[in-house]
């Protein structure tokens, strides 16, 4: 077919012993939006890096417009016509819109910068995106994230891109920005561009994409037309197992109230949040990026300063420092394992016991052997794949690291677990284990607050689901009363609030 712009055939990429990509097949056609779907760790980012020239594939064939395509770096990829828009935008915020659009492809005249030609190109690109009104001399830093994204896309146009790759482009956008972005994407599709849209939001994919390709464990496991495929089919292809296996259900029931939060407000977020949590309850918190979900957990754990409000744990009103919250029975798993969750260079034993060394301590000194014995038990119980308690956390895989982080809050005997994106960036098998563990913990009378950006897992795992928007807890009710659509409507209801 001559509408095939970019084709990948049997592309493989290995890092040491791990196959990041195995026989990946992908076709992006002119005038079409292709959804690239996959769990975290499925190989999407490696695929992008191969396309952008950051990694060379070990084997396989890539063709662009029928010619072999093997870029050495991002610049070469761009010159060939493949442009990539990452989640983290690549803009110089202190430069003007025009300078950003022309960055690396400035127009010259007699060796000097030809500003007039440059401005014309920038204006044309913006106009093509339906944003001719934007003055190219505006400082990029003063624009909203949504507009900055448009600037990046305009840069792609200015470099004559034929294939545009967007990596989870809506993850930090407000609703009207999303609508705006979709209008732009549709325009580009009509212009005959091929667009690869990476996401795991099924709702978005249905709105904007024509076809899909699903990656799992580095393999292409399916592709087809979006309209002809059901959500359940896509989910089971992504996960490689049916819903029952992915979300093991452990029966549990709710007991007395263990955490009550009244009018909690942080410096910026959260704003006036009130709710109660009972033993044996798994409370999910949904919302867009920036809605204040993480800040809510951090305020509860006293990692962020609180402006007002009351936090009661059991009968206690603990003072505002993480160590008092830990003593009162809170435990927190951070969303960022690298920068906050774990001391990467320290051992598993250290990371598991840092928050609760007292059982092994006498007059300020630690009985290391006794401690390591206990940690060995946890390694066994959580089936943490490692050499031993002394192994450094940094040598473990993402999923295994997450288990270490979970082992810590279990070891400190927390009654209320605050889990911030506990399944981010880990493999499907470990995810299922963690879901199962959450059920078991609830059955054992613990209470869990589960923050996630992945709505499907929240709906499958939680007893109660709250939705946050602009720092407020907009609604909270039993999960059975929610639908995916209702949650999304609620999450973008900031105008109403």
């Amino acid at each position, binding site marked *: 077919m001559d509408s095939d712009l970019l084709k990948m055939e049997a592309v493989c990429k290995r890092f040491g012993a791990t196959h990041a990509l195995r026989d990946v097949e992908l076709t992006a056609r002119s005038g079409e939006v292709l959804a690239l779907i996959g769990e975290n760790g499925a190989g999407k980012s490696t695929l992008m890096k191969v396309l952008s020239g950051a990694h060379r594939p070990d084997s396989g064939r890539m063709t662009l417009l029928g010619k072999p395509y093997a870029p050495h770096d991002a610049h070469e990829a761009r010159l060939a016509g493949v442009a990539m828009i990452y989640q983290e935008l690549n803009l110089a915020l202190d430069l003007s819109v025009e300078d950003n659009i022309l960055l690396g492809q400035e127009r010259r005249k007699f060796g000097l910068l030809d500003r007039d030609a440059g401005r014309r190109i920038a204006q044309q690109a913006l106009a093509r995106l339906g944003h001719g009104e934007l003055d190219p001399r505006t400082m990029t830093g003063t624009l909203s994230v949504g507009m900055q994204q448009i600037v990046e896309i305009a840069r792609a146009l200015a470099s004559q891109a034929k294939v545009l790759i967007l990596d989870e482009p809506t993850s930090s956008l407000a609703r009207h920005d999303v609508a705006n972005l979709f209008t732009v994407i549709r325009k580009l599709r009509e212009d005959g561009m091929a667009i690869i849209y990476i996401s795991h939001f099924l709702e978005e994919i249905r709105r904007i994409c024509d076809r899909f390709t699903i990656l799992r464990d580095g393999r292409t496991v399916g592709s087809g037309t979006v309209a002809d495929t059901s959500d359940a089919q896509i989910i089971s292809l992504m996960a490689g197992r049916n819903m029952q296996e992915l979300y093991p259900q452990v029966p549990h029931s709710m007991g007395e109230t263990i955490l009550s939060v009244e009018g909690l407000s942080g410096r910026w977020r959260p704003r006036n949040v009130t709710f109660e949590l009972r033993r044996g309850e798994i409370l999910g918190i949904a919302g867009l990026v920036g809605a204040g979900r993480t800040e809510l957990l951090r305020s509860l*754990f006293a990692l962020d300063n609180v402006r007002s409000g009351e936090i009661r744990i059991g009968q206690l009103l603990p003072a505002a420092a993480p160590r008092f919250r830990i003593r009162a029975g809170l435990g927190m798993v951070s969303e960022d394992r690298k920068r*906050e969750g774990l001391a990467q260079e320290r051992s598993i034993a*250290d*990371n598991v016991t840092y*928050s609760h060394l007292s059982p092994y301590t006498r007059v300020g000194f630690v009985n290391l052997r006794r401690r390591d014995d206990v940690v060995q038990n946890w390694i066994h119980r959580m089936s943490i794949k490692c050499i031993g308690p002394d192994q450094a956390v*940094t040598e473990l895989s993402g999923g295994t690291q997450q288990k270490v982080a979970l082992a810590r809050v279990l070891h400190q005997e927390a009654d209320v677990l605050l889990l911030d994106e506990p399944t981010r960036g880990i493999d499907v098998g470990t995810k299922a284990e963690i879901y199962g563990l959450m059920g078991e913990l609830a059955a054992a009378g613990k209470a869990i607050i589960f923050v996630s950006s992945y709505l499907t897992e929240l709906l499958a795992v939680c007893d109660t689901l709250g939705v946050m928007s602009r720092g407020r807890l907009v609604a909270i009710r039993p999960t059975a009363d929610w639908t995916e659509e209702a949650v999304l409507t609620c999450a973008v209801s900031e105008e109403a609030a």
Partner: protein
Amino acid sequence: MIVWLKSLMNVARPLAAVGAVIAFFTLVDIYLHGGDATFWSKQNLQSISVQNAFVAICALGMLLVIIAGGIDLSAGVALSLCSTILAWGIREDVGFTFAQGENLAGAVARAKSADDMLRDLKATNNSQDIAQAEQAAAERRKRLRELLQIKLTQLESMDTPNQNQLTHAQQAIDDLQNPNSPIAADPVWLRSMPNSPSSIWLGLLMCVGAGALCGLTNGLLIVLLKVVPFIATLGTMTVFLGMAMIVADETSVRPSAAQIPAWLGELSAVRPDPSWLLVSKGVWLALILAVLMACLLRYSVFGRYVFALGSNESTARLCGINVPLVKITVYTLAGLLVGIAAVCFFARLNSGNPTSGTGLELKFIAAVVIGGGSLSGGRGTVLGTLAGAAIMGVIASGGTLLGLSNPTQYIALGVIVIMAVAVDQLRRSQNN
């Protein structure tokens, strides 16, 4: 088994590095000097070790700070501040001053100035003022005699009274009986007077206390004002320098030889007494402190927290570790070690010079880094740090012996610091 082998390797590596450097210089020395080679001699090794004992002690403190993810640029100047304070305490005979309100040197100076005043007045012939001045001078002489009497009693009560000192003191008392005897500005007898026994203890307390206080100041600045350690200690570095200069009155503080107790000198004696100690007592002090530090780092809750803090401060906070308290303790302990090192430092120089420690902090940092410590925190060992200090000492001594100029030695040291870190990086990336 593998773990056991790994820890054996960790012990062997720093020792092997020191051994290699020593072997290198020994061989070159033998090659150049043949039978006259002196590098591999008991005395030379003893002298290298004693010259670097204070570096090792300070480096132990620096190690603690660096593991916790900080840096202490003020350590070098704090070292000279502490040793200047100790020198001042000894020169001023602080124990005697504390008990009597003034010391002998002060009393001599005052008596002399009263005498001088009297002489000047006599020259102008002002009869009323003369009477007053005569009385003042007499009182000053009386006071000096009293103080001398007290000192004499102290001397007599010693286990082994020094006959020479006794006669000096007695002679001075007798001279003062005569109101017309002149008073010298710096009398010979004064220089032979030893201090009160309490003076050295008070001096040591002030010295070590000042070190701890310097560290505490650094810690509080870093924690309360949230200034990054580099800047905070860069600031306190000049503050401490200024303070040391005030203490030393912008020169250096030189107590007389008689004022310095003999055992203090033994801390820096090349040949230890008794000789079965092999190395000087100052070196043993450093080794004992090193063992204590190793235990603290490995087995104490505090040590675990220090590693947690240096490895990832956010994680430490997440785990409920009292981060400010740990930081303040880290800097205070490091300061305390600087205070202890200052005693050895003073023992080597027998004087307190406010600027003698300037730049030494880089040596302490280099010792930690050569020993495998990471300036980004979370990594470092006591054994490595000792080895680092030893390697620098061996290079300095060996370089001199081989006739390498000072500049060449500096260059060699710089190259070694960079090589050590590069090799360490390489090893780590291979492990990964």
